[in-house]
């Protein structure tokens, strides 16, 4: 009898794993809470490091699903439980779904920038997040301030909600650095005359082509990087933002007025991930992301046989890393199903 695998979460990792499993001849059901698959990728206009359109990758992933995978959108899960053989999912629609293995590809949430009150998100007109900015790019409209003006100076604040004990997140979100550099370049593409600044503590250009993009940002686009973390900001009468940092390389406090301040928000575990993890008895790390059995050698396994992990439910992931990870997860599940 054919085995059934349910993939929870239709983002990058879930879509990749589902199509890989289908290619391997498994019967796959992909559950997505929203009304369509794609996850956060739907929000992204262009991807780092080469600034290719996000929809290219999305289309690729969507096409791979077609005719192979039973994709079910608008499917919230009310509960999941372990059965003598396999698992049983109770869907919010009332349906009960038995399966032999589960893949948690539930992804992440973006950090809620309201929590950094000193940055004034939701208080000042021209403080936005990197996700807001990406949506603006995606809309195809020119970027403007809330007042409708073209920005002449834009500041990118790194590490918002990441590496910050004050919001309880000690970890690094990995991709905000490179996102900040990418978006800074995109601002300059639209407004060659604008001044663009990045306020950083460390710039972590960890992957291939990242450092080169950073180099390009400086060399070609004249983007300024100031080493210092923004401590607070205030709003001027003209709705511009005055921010404060220490210019740590001259050891002096510095204030600067920007027309637009972009907060590079990081990853946080989604409540849905944690809820499912609790129901399944999966170990949650101190950073509240899901813990695999062994982060080097068995990074897709959980302590519960038959429950697998892929992508950003395990911590911050880039799209390319999520795709690779999900492919590996599919192979591991395929092998596991053979042993049943």
């Amino acid at each position, binding site marked *: 009898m054919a085995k059934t695998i349910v993939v929870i979460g239709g983002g990058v990792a879930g879509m990749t794993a589902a199509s890989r499993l289908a290619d391997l001849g498994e019967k796959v059901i992909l559950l997505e809470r929203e009304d369509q698959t794609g996850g956060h990728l739907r929000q992204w206009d262009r991807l780092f490091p080469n600034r290719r359109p996000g929809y290219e990758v999305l289309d690729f992933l969507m096409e791979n699903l077609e005719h192979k995978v039973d994709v079910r959108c608008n499917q919230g899960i009310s509960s999941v439980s372990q059965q003598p053989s396999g698992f049983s999912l109770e869907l919010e629609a009332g349906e009960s779904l038995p399966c032999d293995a589960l893949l948690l590809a539930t992804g992440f949430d973006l950090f809620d920038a309201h929590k950094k009150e*000193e940055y004034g998100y939701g208080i*000042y007109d021209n403080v936005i997040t990197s996700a807001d900015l990406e949506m603006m790019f995606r809309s195809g409209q020119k970027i403007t301030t809330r007042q409708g003006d073209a920005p002449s100076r834009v500041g990118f604040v790194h590490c918002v909600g990441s590496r910050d004990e*004050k919001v*309880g997140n000690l970890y690094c979100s990995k991709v905000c650095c490179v996102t900040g550099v990418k978006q800074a370049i995109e601002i300059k593409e639209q407004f060659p005359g604008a001044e663009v600044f990045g306020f950083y503590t460390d710039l972590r250009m960890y992957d291939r082509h990242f450092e080169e993009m950073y180099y390009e940002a400086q060399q070609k686009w004249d983007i300024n990087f100031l080493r210092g973390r923004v401590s607070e900001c*205030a709003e001027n009468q003209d709705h511009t933002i005055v921010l404060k940092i220490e210019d740590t390389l001259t050891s002096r406090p510095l204030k600067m007025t920007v027309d637009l301040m972009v907060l590079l928000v990081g990853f946080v575990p989604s409540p849905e991930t944690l809820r499912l993890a609790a129901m399944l008895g999966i170990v949650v790390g101190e950073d509240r992301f899901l813990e695999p059995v062994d982060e080097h050698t068995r990074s897709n396994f959980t302590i519960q046989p038959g429950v697998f992990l892929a992508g950003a439910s395990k911590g911050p992931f880039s799209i390319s890393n999520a795709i690779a990870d999900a492919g590996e997860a599919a192979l591991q599940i395929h092998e596991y199903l053979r042993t049943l």
Partner: protein
Amino acid sequence: MISFNLFVLPFSLGLIYLLYMIIRWWSIWIRGLPAEDQKKFRTGIFSRNFFSALKEVFLESLIHRKMFRRNALLGYMHMSFAFGWFLLILCGNIESRIYSTTHVNPPYYPIFLKFFIHDRTVLWFEINTVPGFFRFLMDFLLLFVLSGLVLAMVKRGRPKWFGMKRTTHHQLTDKVALICLWLIFPVRLIAESFTDGYYGAGGGFLTQHLGNLMVLIFHESSRHIAYALWWAYSLLLGIFFVTLPFSRFWHIPSEVLLIFFRQFGITAKKSTTSFTEVEIGACSRCGVCIDVCQLGYAAHIHDIQAVYFLRSVRDEQVNRDILLRCLVCGRCQEACPVGINADSIRLIERNMFSGSHASDFTYLPADPPQKAPVLYFAGCMTHLTPAIIRAMKGILKQAGVDYLFLDEKGTVCCGRPIMLSGKYEQAEKLVHFNRELILQSGAHTLVTSCPICFRVFREEYKLPIRVMHHSQFLLELIKAGKIPLQAFHRKVAYHDPCDLGRGGQEYDAPRELLAKVAELVEVPQDGEDSLCCGGSLGIYTISSRKRDLITHDALRNLTASQPEVLATACPLCKKTFSKHAEIEVLDIAEMVYDAMPE
């Protein structure tokens, strides 16, 4: 005829020593008062305050009124010891006067009366009124004290019955004195019983019956046992008296003097005076402060509570950790049955400990401010909570207040944070600087959003103008009809900031204000009993993890009634709670601002 026996010596010598110590220290303390306080003391003795002090001594030192208020069982336990023993001494004296053939009785005579006079049945007073009155009375009082002793033993095992969770961890001298105290009355009971039983007379309902039983068992040797027990009784009393000045029981004479001092209007100063020393002596180490201390039950720090801090001061063993690891939230002094201002004493000690570091504030800017009738001083923390500033600006604009935002571009600190480290002199520089700035503005009202600033403005700045926290000022504006408000139905729990509530004695204005814009829900521990948010500036040596524990615990209390919003009136509390709260945390100014029609 006055009787004497060698065994009275330990008691007598102990008593002489104790009286010497009390007189010695009382006179040292009284003479050690600053001149103005000495004057208050001299005039106080000959005023009506003297009698109100006596009354207070009776109510607090003997009856333990405050203990009763806290917990009836605890109060009774303390009363039975103090008041019971007092009555034993008083009635014993009266009784011994009646039997005495001389004009002056030695002090040991009433204590060991039964040893010297075995048969007291011939007393004319009793024949004519109630036979065996004194025999009954003395046994009854002894039983009264013994009931307290039983409770004290029960308290060791079941502190919860007495409204306590933890008890004080005592020192050796405390333990010796305590063992003596516990043994004194049972030993007296059996010493008297053996004597009464042997002589077949003189005892009351308790001692006589118990004595008769003993003689049945021990026969003739009862006399020797009785004698040995009288020795033991005297020795226990003697040891107790000698150890008393070095143990927690020194609080008894100290508290008496403290009550007189207070009744005469003597108060604590910013540096150590006799008053502070008497306060330190008056700590009975009852441990009430231990249970209320959030550092203890929430953050598992158990060695710095007021009782241990005061003991370390008395023993001259203050160290940096015990001094600096305290929230200075004021909860312990609010709970203290003796009313000791442990926080003030801690600051005085921090001052002495803070060393001789010159602070360099020569950089203070000197631009005079613009003139304005109202000053708004947000406070440095408020600059990290821009929503409060936005709200205040919006409300003040709406209400048409002509004001100057004094620290819009930042300013120097109000001085309280450094004062909390005990660096008074350095704080004084900041106070002086800000005070000049405030006075130069010509304002009649100073409004601040920060309770820390609010407290120091009121306590230290000695400003001739109104100093208000924004909760008070906004309430005034609303009452004057200057702020239109929309109906608003959100369940709100209010958190009292330490420096506004216990520190500033303002509990009502924020509640009244909130009631106008939201629905207040009940918080189990609030008002005087409200908890510190964990962000306190009073504490120096604490990890952020321990702070988190305190915050979590305080949040449990505040969210007990499932509010939708947690309201507070302090930027520091707001930031501290925001890190952990699962519901929205708002300052009351924001609540008012949100309730204003667009």
